């Protein structure tokens, strides 16, 4: 079956420091990986969409300078939250799309970031 792993599941960092989170697709090839953030208020925001062989597209209010993403192959993506502050806390979800399917997107369990 198709699975998406995210690591770490939970992390705590000090304000002003950076942390990296990873997303691994297992059982399928992920042509696109989308990173989302769920705020403590439970709303989802799309941070960026990364498609293999294309430029990473960041949504408004999110920048590469703040959330650099690496998508080196069809099974792995990572995102770093640079210079994290309180407003960056939340659950970061990775959604990976199967190259064999037009719409299927599998979500990982998320990385919960707490900023002290």
């Amino acid at each position, binding site marked *: 079956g198709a699975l998406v792993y995210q690591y770490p599941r939970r992390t705590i960092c000090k304000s002003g420091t950076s942390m990296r989170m990873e997303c691994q697709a297992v059982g399928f090839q992920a042509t*696109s990986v*989308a990173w989302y953030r769920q705020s403590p208020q439970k709303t*989802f925001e799309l941070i960026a969409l990364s498609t293999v062989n294309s430029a990473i597209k960041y949504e408004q209010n999110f920048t590469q300078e703040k959330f650099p993403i690496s998508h080196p192959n069809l099974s792995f993506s990572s995102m770093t939250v640079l210079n994290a502050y309180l407003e960056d806390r939340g659950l970061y979800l990775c959604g990976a799309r199967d190259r064999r399917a037009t*719409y299927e997107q*599998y979500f990982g369990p998320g990385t919960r970031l707490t900023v002290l």
Partner: protein
Amino acid sequence: AQRVTQVQPTGSSQWGEEVTLDCSYETSEYFYRIFWYRQLFSGEMVFLIYQPSFDTQNQRSGRYSVVFQKSFKSISLVISASQPEDSGTYFCALSELKPRTGGYKVVFGSGTRLLVSP
């Protein structure tokens, strides 16, 4: 514009009852899918069911089914014989297919928190 609206922030039911959760959306694309996910208390998202825009038949998967009213751009999730384990937050999500770029974007609603009592 792409938007998903879930007007019910909370819902409740008793064990065995049928539950309906509502969702409306906005899209200018012809091809799209509507997904329903349940978020566990751990934060993990669990896929439940999806409805393709081009399929007029309401989809069904186990105890989950949808009522798709394309002309009204609304879709409801129906959970039959609800159980306490069904408690959680349910998210409706819209995935458009962009024909020119082949890309896609998923937009989520704000969620409906469901509590099923024993």
